[in-house]
């Protein structure tokens, strides 16, 4: 499979201006994601981390700064490369097409890009499902599957396109602890196998440290990088790493930064309400 892409976010600012209300969602934020790196972005809810992801994905335009993927410009002020299959988004609440079967969902990308014929795409979708031990659900509709299986299918739907970056916006939110840990293992397996760059948003610190090569803690709105933590836990990892001293130390460091920002967000919220 293709190697991951390097993502370069340079002094990006995103200002919303709906009817004169000036809201700075992202403020002069710079961040480098290396090729094949698993980056996890952590920050309080509503801090602007999803906004930044939407700009990278091409759903929204930035106000200042620039974003590059492998030196090709993705976004400059007023000049935005629209969404594309080299940086696929996996959404918070799941976005499988309810009217398509599992097979049709996974095959959607290659078919819609006219990269493969339908038969061929479905054949490789079938093969992908077999490789991850999910045979037997090919003809099911998403609503017939558990949410854990849905998320796995959605990740496969992204990976079949061999994207350079996968943008994951709190993809495991709302799953129970057991399903979540299955998903973590699945995602790490996929990461080992494809080595495509992962840009993963969450506010679950255990999840962040367990998955990441590097954790970035964002400030509360407007979003900026507050802290970068290099996660030097050896790979491949499994759940046992969660109890190690190194893990707890990293978590402590992240927790302090997040706590500080959460407190600020809380006070800002109170100010807004007052």
């Amino acid at each position, binding site marked *: 499979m293709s190697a991951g892409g390097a993502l370069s976010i340079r002094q990006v600012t995103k200002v919303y201006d709906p009817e004169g209300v000036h809201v700075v969602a992202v403020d002069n934020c710079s961040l480098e994601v290396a090729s094949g790196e698993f980056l996890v972005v952590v920050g309080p809810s509503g801090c602007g981390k999803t906004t930044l992801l939407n700009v990278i994905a*091409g759903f929204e335009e930035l106000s200042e700064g620039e974003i590059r993927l492998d030196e090709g410009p993705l976004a400059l002020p007023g000049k935005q490369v629209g*969404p594309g299959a080299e940086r*696929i988004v996996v*959404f918070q609440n799941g976005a499988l*097409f309810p*009217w398509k079967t599992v097979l049709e969902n996974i095959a959607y990308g290659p078919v*819609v*890009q006219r990269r493969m014929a339908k038969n061929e795409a479905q054949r490789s979708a079938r093969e992908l499902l077999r490789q991850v031990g999910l045979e037997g659900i090919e003809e099911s509709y998403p609503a017939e599957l558990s949410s854990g299986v849905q998320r796995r299918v959605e990740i496969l*739907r992204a990976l079949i396109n061999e994207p350079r970056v996968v943008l994951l916006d709190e993809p495991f939110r709302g799953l129970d602890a057991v399903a979540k840990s299955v998903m973590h293992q699945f995602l790490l397996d996929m990461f080992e196998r494809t080595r495509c760059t992962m840009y993963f948003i969450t506010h679950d610190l255990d999840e962040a440290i367990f998955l990441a090569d590097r954790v970035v803690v964002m400030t509360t709105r407007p979003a900026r990088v507050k802290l970068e933590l290099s996660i030097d836990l050896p790979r491949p990892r499994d759940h046992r790493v969660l109890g190690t001293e190194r893990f707890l130390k990293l978590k402590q460091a992240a927790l302090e930064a997040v706590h500080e920002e959460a407190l600020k967000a809380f006070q800002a919220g109170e100010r807004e309400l007052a």
Partner: protein
Amino acid sequence: MAKRWLNRHALRGLVSIVAFVVLWELVVVLKLPYLKFLPLPGQVAASLGQSIASSAYWQDWELSLGRILVGFLAAQALGITLGLAMGISRTARRFVFPIFEVLRPIPPIAWIPLAIIFWPTTSLTIYFLVFTGSFFIVALNVLDGVKSVDQSLVRAAYSLGAKPRDVFWRIMLPATLPYVLTGATVGMGVTWNVLIAAEMVTSAGQSGLGGMTWAAYTNGVLPVIVVGMLSIGVAGYLSSALIRFLGERFMPWRRRI
């Protein structure tokens, strides 16, 4: 187990129908005030037998069904198109919606006098009325459908490399389909209301199930009135069942849930 459960329900349905007929018979036999002119169930059954054997009765069916088909399909075609246009283009919505807001609250039956004056033939008049009966409902449902398409599905499609055309045909349309079905179901109910009223008012000789019922009234043939009513009920039921069937056929992902 499932079969017994089904049988018990079928049995209850049968009991309720039998009880209804017995009550009906009693009401007439006991000459309850106001209800004594009601024909006996037996008389209605006999009259139904005669009707089924006559070709005029089936011509009325044909006429009514044909009118529903033309008016309803036209309403679907135009309503879906306009609903989609309004949903996708803000400009279209701003042009069309105000007219909608004025015309929509007018009950379709209130269009009857104007329709009779405007359209040269009875058939055209009735097509138009049937069309008016469901057009607004269909268009507004589709508009609602387009507006409630889950934006993360649209974004997911773009992210996977879809072009706006693909998003329209492969995402917008299937996502709107359940709303089309709702529009069709509600619209079909209204359509039969309007059709029967229109046929009764414009009645001239051969004029469908509504006209047949009204003619029976003017001729004082009471059992035929009831036959007409029952026929209209069956026709309405069959139309709704057909729409339900088509809905399941075209939306298999909803059937299996």
